[in-house]
């Protein structure tokens, strides 16, 4: 049978607020355990939650970013279950009425086609703490620093049909939340966590099959692999005439497989009800208008502007707008280079991209500043150095030997444009190679390249290649 895969994603984005969603504790990552947990976060008796306006504002920002309806009134509910990292025995979350309603995102696939993915809702909730399992005399240690960090749970429609689409969508969500400045998107630190629902149905069927949920996938690569594995697993079961169980699974990157989480002793019964400590959240038109007025340029807008203003091909524009930091960097390079947007794009994407990739660095950690890279590009465009020499200069810049001008000066890499100097080098090459001169003049035109190479070599690469070409031709042909 032909099977069709149906995928939906639930993405938890930790909002980049200073303080927690219901308390004034810091949300900073990586502090000593339980040093950022106050009585509210610890679920002590009698304490009460007070909502952080920053979290609501960020949720609204996201809603506007996906063209969603913003709920004028949304309600916080309690999701009741016992777990040591959940201090109150319930999680405060939006259930029936989320702050962000239906919206959508457009994704671009590798083959250049675009697709619109529906977003069912996005709601605010509080994060849980962390359990640490190592080295506590057989006990588990609980750190509640993370408890109460605001999360935006972004729920997609089951509109995705392949692992690649799912990854493209997840990446797009990450790009968007980063652009909006509402989440740092750091998957390693758990700032962005993905749950995937995967199911199979016979091709052409309208009905959904039973889905398995894979929890807490923490990289795009694992996301793709986890879905791929899950598709195979489910198809094998179905081909054998079995049925897929509705269950929660975990992806194990080491074994590259998904595994069923230990079946709980009872089915979860979360007993949601409206949190009586919190009143309905009202977001009025003025609030929305204020957020809208301060909305940054979004990825799709930026991409189109890059294509128009800088004359970049769509591919370049896509790559350069994949993150707000990269786009900002690129624009700073163009500014510093005083033009040459396409050349700047090439340098940012290939030369710099290669270095960052090799060193495992983010654009924000680039060893070469945008101003410095712009300076280098300027030296290419004003013909102080050739593109080839520029790569040598760039290497030195990466190694921390200073900006382009410093490196050029120190290494004496300035391009030779003095015609008499070039003529002298050419004369020496012609004199030293009478055989080749004869062959060339006998009709072997292709040798011109060989002569150029010899002259460039003699100049240590510094001669202006165009000039060399021109003068060589004059001398050989003349």
């Amino acid at each position, binding site marked *: 049978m032909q099977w069709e895969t149906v995928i939906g994603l639930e993405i938890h984005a930790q909002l980049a607020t200073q303080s927690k969603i219901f308390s004034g504790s810091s949300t900073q990552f990586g502090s000593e355990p339980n040093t950022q947990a106050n009585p509210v976060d610890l679920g002590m008796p009698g304490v009460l939650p007070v909502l952080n306006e920053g979290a609501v504002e960020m949720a609204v920002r996201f809603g506007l970013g996906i063209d969603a309806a913003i709920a004028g009134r949304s309600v916080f509910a309690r999701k009741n279950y016992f777990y040591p990292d959940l201090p109150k025995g319930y999680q405060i979350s939006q259930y029936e009425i989320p702050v962000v309603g239906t919206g959508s995102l457009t994704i671009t696939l590798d083959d250049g086609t675009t697709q619109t993915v529906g977003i069912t809702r996005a709601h605010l909730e509080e994060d849980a703490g962390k359990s640490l399992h190592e080295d506590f005399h057989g006990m588990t240690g609980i750190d509640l620093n993370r408890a109460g960090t605001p999360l935006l749970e972004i729920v997609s429609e089951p509109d995705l049909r392949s692992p690649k689409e799912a990854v493209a969508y997840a990446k797009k969500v990450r790009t968007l939340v980063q652009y909006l400045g509402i989440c740092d998107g750091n998957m390693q630190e758990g700032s962005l966590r993905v749950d995937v629902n995967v199911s199979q149905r016979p091709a052409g069927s309208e009905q959904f099959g039973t889905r398995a949920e894979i929890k807490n996938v923490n990289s795009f690569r694992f996301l793709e692999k986890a879905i791929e594995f899950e598709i195979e697993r489910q198809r094998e079961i179905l081909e054998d005439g079995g049925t897929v169980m509705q269950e929660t699974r975990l992806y194990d990157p080491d074994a590259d497989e998904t595994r069923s989480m*230990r079946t709980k002793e009872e089915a979860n019964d979360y007993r949601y009800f409206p949190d009586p400590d919190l009143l309905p959240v009202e977001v009025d038109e003025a609030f929305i208008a204020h957020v809208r007025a301060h909305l940054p340029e979004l990825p799709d807008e930026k991409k189109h502007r890059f294509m128009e203003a800088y004359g970049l091909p769509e591919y370049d524009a896509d790559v350069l707008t994949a993150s707000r930091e990269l786009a900002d960097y690129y624009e700073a390079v163009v500014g510093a280079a005083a033009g040459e947007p396409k050349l700047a794009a090439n340098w940012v994407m290939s030369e710099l991209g290669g270095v960052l990739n090799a060193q495992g660095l983010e654009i924000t950690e680039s060893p070469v500043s945008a101003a410095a890279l712009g300076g280098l590009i300027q030296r290419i465009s004003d013909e102080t150095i050739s593109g080839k020499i520029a790569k040598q200069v760039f290497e030195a810049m990466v190694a921390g030997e200073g900006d382009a001008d410093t490196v050029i000066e120190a290494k004496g890499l300035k391009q030779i444009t003095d015609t008499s100097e070039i003529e002298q080098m050419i004369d020496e090459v012609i004199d030293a190679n009478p055989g080749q001169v004869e062959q060339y003049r006998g009709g072997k035109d292709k040798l011109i390249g060989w002569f150029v190479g010899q002259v460039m070599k003699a100049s240590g690469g510094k001669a202006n290649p165009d000039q060399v070409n021109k003068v060589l031709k004059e001398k050989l042909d003349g």
Partner: protein
Amino acid sequence: MSLSNDEVRKIARLARLAVTDAEVETYSDELSNILGLVDRMDRVDTAGVTPMAHPQHATQRMRPDAVTETDQRERYQKIAPAVDRGLYLVPRVVE
């Protein structure tokens, strides 16, 4: 509405309350009686009535996003049953 012993056990588990077999018997009777009292609500027709979750008709007040708390771990953990190196300890959790 009356509750069977099994239902009582199920609820007790959901609420994480240890109950002995003898207690289950008692709770089964008592809870059934309480539900009998509660079932008097059925005498009123509430079709179309808006549920009232809260006595207030106000909306949620919001606080500005600012860190107002400092580290007071030592103070808060003084009353904890089991801590080690700043962590609260529980019997090993199997994921």
